[in-house]
């Protein structure tokens, strides 16, 4: 089972950008794609524990602020060395002007 958590307001993120969201001791990255779709992934790079929200979003790619790790944030897919472990992704919905992400129940 999972539950929905409000991560931020829709207007908190610009198009083609990313925002860090911390909740219950974990960190997540919320993305607003150029086509205005929203996505959510785990908040740190799978290579080293660096916050992805400090990285650069270009189209549907997030690039880690250190090294050259790149992921497709829609699927979480790692796009080649030095990252080879995919990012966890989370379902997203928009409701009441807010961005909600579905987290697994503890």
């Amino acid at each position, binding site marked *: 089972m999972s539950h929905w958590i409000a991560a931020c307001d829709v207007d908190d993120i610009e198009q*083609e950008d990313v925002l860090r969201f911390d909740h219950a001791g974990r960190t997540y990255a919320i993305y607003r794609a150029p086509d205005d779709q929203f996505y959510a992934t785990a908040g740190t790079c799978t290579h080293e524990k660096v916050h992805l929200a400090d990285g650069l979003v270009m189209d549907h790619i997030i690039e880690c602020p250190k090294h050259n790790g790149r992921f497709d944030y829609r699927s979480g897919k790692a796009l080649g060395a030095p990252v080879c472990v995919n990012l966890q992704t989370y379902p997203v919905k928009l409701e009441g002007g807010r961005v909600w992400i579905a987290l697994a129940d503890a």
Partner: protein
Amino acid sequence: MNHPAPIIIVGAGHAGGRAALALREQGYAGRLLLIGDESHLPYERPALSKQLLLDSQPADACHIGSAEQYQTQAIERLAGVRVAAIQPQARRIRLHDGRELDYHRLLLATGGRARHASLPGADLAGVQLLRTLDDAAALRPRLHTGQRLLVVGGGFIGLEVAASARQLGCAVTVLEAGDRLAARALPPLISEKLLALHRARGVEVRLGCQIAAFRGDGSVSAVALADGELLACDTVLVGIGIQPNTELAAAAGLAVGNGIRVDARLRTSDAHIYAVGDACEFPCPVSGQPQRLETWRNAEEQGRHVARTLLGADDAYAALPWFWSDQFDHSLQLAGQLQAAANCVTRALPDDGVLLFYLDTAERLQGACGWGAGNSIARDIKLAEMLIRSGKALSAAALADPACSLKSLLKGVTSV
């Protein structure tokens, strides 16, 4: 590409390990040997001066690939093995134990070794270097509350260790011979920011400081300065750069300058031998001048590039230089070239951060350097890299304006 003789990689550090894995990724199915004098798997070095000392990351998180990966991909690792000689005519190497191995192609990824201070007392216990995982493991237990650490050298290794040691409760003094910190790599403004941060966090930094000797009875207890002053300490970290491991190449008659000389394809003066990483001196893609880089990206990218070259690709190595350094809760990043620029534009950022842009006479970006809290400047430096590669003429006023997004400059939305 299935030849009876293997590709042999000498040096199992970052560049060597990456090259081995990349060769398999790119489909090389022949024999592949990876020879290194350390017992460890290939590993990345940035964490040695930070996460490993601060216990925020285990040593095996630095590894490039796993033991299983090397095994399943039939990469034959000879660990703890030194190469004694190369015989280019016979395409053969000799190991220290006398074994001889033929190669089809040889890749030298021999890296460098930490330079030791050639001063009296340098062999005292407690005078430490930091280059390897074993060095980090030996340094770590010496850094705790109440311990006095003297750092010789105000470059990146020295400063990063100083920051880590300070966070671990040590009393830390940095002794730098020059008149500013990290002067070889950084613009003066960033050196000033580094100095201010270290001093604000309680690191004593002495510039223009000449050391005469290390003193102690068996283990180091003080550093004597040239003016006679004695500074008491429990541990000394010598961070005065590395010496590239070029001896093997030189003895084999390969061209060697300030590193093993290679062409833009990373090939040495022998057509069957290539070199990558900290040990190699390659032509700068911009100026053509020989350069040697000691950075994570250089090891990573040259390792990957040479794998393609060994399998028949013919493109020149043209990656942009890039590095970072983390100190306390701040970081700096530098991309491209700063030396040849005609004009420097400064963009002030919140919380004492700054971006410096280096333009040529046609107002094209050549290099950029950023400093700020956390990883706050990372995305702007990434965008600066893209702007450098774009070759676009840029407006100095736009670059200086914190309200002007670099992404808009890249996409041409903002008129110049």
